[in-house]
């Protein structure tokens, strides 16, 4: 079953035109890595030049910003929903 990664419509070109991807990963970081490995076009947008997950993104697990959970180390389980949106949207 795994988790679902969702992106807004304006970012769906990152993942080949779909708005969601399923994955079986144990942490948020693994989900981001999975996304970049399976959809290479997303890599430059997901990571900064230092290889860190971009600070221009907000990542949510089941609606909650992972900053308020355990960050990228937050555990992901079957049925969870991960959402990625541009940071600027939060205003």
């Amino acid at each position, binding site marked *: 079953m795994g988790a679902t990664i*969702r*992106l*807004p*419509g*304006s970012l769906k070109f990152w993942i080949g035109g779909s*708005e*969601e991807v399923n994955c079986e990963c144990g942490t948020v970081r693994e989900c981001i890595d999975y996304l970049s490995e399976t959809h290479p076009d997303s890599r430059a947008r997901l990571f900064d030049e230092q290889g860190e997950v971009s600070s221009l993104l*907000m990542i*949510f697990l*089941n*609606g*909650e*910003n992972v900053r308020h959970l355990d960050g990228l180390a937050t555990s992901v389980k079957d049925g969870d*929903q991960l*959402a990625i*949106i*541009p*940071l*600027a*949207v*939060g*205003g």
Partner: protein
Amino acid sequence: MIVDDPNSHFVFVYHPEIYYGKRYTVYDGRPMTNGEVLENWGKWIILGELASLEKLAAELNSYVERESIPVIKYDREPPRNLGIDECVMMVYCDKRCRETVWAILESHGVKLKAWVSEKETMEMWSPGGFLLERWIESKNLDENQALAVREDARVRLGSVFERPEEIFSPWTQ
């Protein structure tokens, strides 16, 4: 009630009694203080094309009128100066009610689930904050104009942080 004032960047969905002094930052029948807003107020973020947000707003209007949702606002056009290519809808509520409001949104087809607290947003629009600085840059303001904008933000948002006991007063947008 959908309020589409062309002088505003945003279209709002208000309870009709907003013009008679009704507040929407209310919890348990009591107006929220600045401190309570910082702790509990926030919004579900929905992105989409204007037409889809207009349709959703029309569907959600009855929930606002029944007070199941306190207030909604959405962009009339994508805020491209902030690097965003879609319109953004913000469905506001208290964190303690957010799953009830999410269930409403989900029943109307919203899938991407993203909650942003008002405190996070205010920090981004405070001097030195990501959004305020990006906005200043996008407007090509000179140094004095930028300083004035930062000072306005400091006064307006600073009072929310500095006076937590006061009743929260939203500002015109």
